[in-house]
């Protein structure tokens, strides 16, 4: 089984549309949606949820007003400015749950024992069936943290399933950026496919995300999406990538059919057999050849 992660650095370059199309082209695959704080793959694949689990990444501090001595030590020591005076003018301090990092220092130092550490459910994750195969996905409750932990959970369950049913591929839809959820979805993969676009920011962000895949020693290829928006920048991206030993596995044109497929809840290749689908298919064939060592 080969584990292929689709990432981008810059957001909105077409990761999810391309991952879904690849899934339809792969014969035996398992999917993992690791963009846990803005997951969209389910909109194209309509998963039937088979198993549902709660995710708790940690906990939050909570001050019990009846025990609080109002000494303010917690507020003084909290490095995350999470202990605040409430807006209603009350003299009791409260913990802002968005700012609370869950370190537990206030719980430990409170002289009155007035602060409790409450485990918090930060999200849910699911094992589902789709027409492409099994899919593991998650939903981080809006505004919650610990997305890296949730990504690790999703990925390891997807790996188990892929190993268990002898899948050829595990396709991982990553998140934008290069911080904790990206590192969690990338480290230890067999291949990273960077989806970029021919814009100055696409180019800039490609170099940073390629630096990250190099840092984690993950073999990397690039797919240039909407390549005809600016062919000159596409050529420049291709040259920069090749100079770093990164193969360009495909150029996919801008086509309104990609958005139309999204609206229809289908993958691009299910929706159309036009040239854009052919270009995605060609990119997928390059990935197969690379993973079978034919290149």
């Amino acid at each position, binding site marked *: 089984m080969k584990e292929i992660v689709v990432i981008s650095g810059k957001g909105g370059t077409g990761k999810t549309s391309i991952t879904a199309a690849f899934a339809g082209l792969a014969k035996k695959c398992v999917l993992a949606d690791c963009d846990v*704080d803005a997951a969209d793959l389910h909109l194209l694949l309509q998963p039937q949820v088979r198993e549902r689990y709660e995710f708790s990444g940690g906990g939050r501090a909570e001050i019990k007003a009846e025990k609080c001595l109002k000494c303010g030590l917690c507020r003084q020591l909290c490095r995350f400015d999470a202990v605040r005076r409430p807006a209603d003018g009350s003299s009791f301090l409260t913990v802002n749950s968005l700012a609370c990092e869950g370190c537990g220092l206030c719980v430990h130092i409170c002289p009155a024992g007035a602060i409790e550490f409450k485990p918090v459910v930060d999200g849910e994750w699911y094992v589902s069936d789709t027409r492409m195969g099994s899919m593991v996905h998650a939903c981080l409750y809006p*505004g919650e943290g610990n997305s890296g932990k949730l990504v690790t959970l999703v990925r390891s369950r997807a790996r188990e399933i892929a190993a268990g049913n002898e899948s050829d591929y595990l396709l991982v839809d990553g998140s934008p950026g290069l911080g904790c959820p990206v590192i969690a979805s990338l480290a230890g993969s067999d291949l990273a496919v960077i989806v970029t676009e021919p814009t100055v*920011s696409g180019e800039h962000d490609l170099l940073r995300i390629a630096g990250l895949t190099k840092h984690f020693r993950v073999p990397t290829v690039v797919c240039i999406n909407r390549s005809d928006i600016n062919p000159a920048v596409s050529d420049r991206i291709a040259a920069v990538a090749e100079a770093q030993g990164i193969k360009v596995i495909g150029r996919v044109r801008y086509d309104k059919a990609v958005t139309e497929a999204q609206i229809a809840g289908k993958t691009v290749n299910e929706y159309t057999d036009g040239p854009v689908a052919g270009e995605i298919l060609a990119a997928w064939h390059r990935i197969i050849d690379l993973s079978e060592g034919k290149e």
Partner: protein
Amino acid sequence: MKIAVASGKGGTGKTTVAVNLCLFLADAGLQTTYADCDVEEPDGHLFLKPEIISRRRTGIPVPQVDPEACNLCGECGSLCRYSAIVVLKDRVMTFPELCHGCGGCAYICPARAIAEVDRPIGSVDRGNAGKLGFISGCLDIGQAMSPPLIKEVLKETPDDGVTIVDAPPGTSCPAMTAVGDCDYLLLVTEPTPFGRHDLELMLKAVRSLPMPKGVVLNRVNGPDAAMEEMCGRYDVPILARIPEDRLVAEAYSKGLTAWEAVSGYRTVFADLWSGIQKDAGRCGE
């Protein structure tokens, strides 16, 4: 006034809106600062082309244990919820990448054996782009934690004038850190199923935040009843509808701003600014 520009989905046009709004405000004579808090992939400089005056390295305070002073009591290890400090039989091990910098171990150590040292995670640049103030954070490649760096960028924003905060995509801790303390929140999205779905996640994420919020629809090419209905349901006004325009996309691809490339954009951002002022006033009453 601090205005954060955010979106659940990436690539919807946050930076385009933030940069062009800045250019409009500066042109209108307001003291304006652009603050790039998308520290994992900061791109504002590609369009504003600022002159950088200073660069400051910044980091997370992590523990350094003095083995002579340490009596291996184990209190630090049992406090730390991130397993960043572990007490063994004969020594204490630290894992700086796991440390969130809460300072708890150093504070509670009965033997005063723990000092804190800075572990760099990125840098904060300051400069000017014409009349605009410019601040931008850039996370070092391989670093996982962006919120501490985002806070450092926000610390440098001025109290007076208008600051436009370009937030990272998503709905989790980095985005929440960037928008948490702003006075107005602009949510940028595009009229696609992904754009609508992720806007709803964002609207849920920011529901408990006190500041007024408005939506900017980007790349609009017709009415979108489902989007209008959803914004109505969350009681968030749509302040601007930016038409889909290949000229803008091409300008963006070259690192030009819509402001420079397309003359009609002045009105779009003038309207957006008056919409923000009116909406901020409405919520303040």
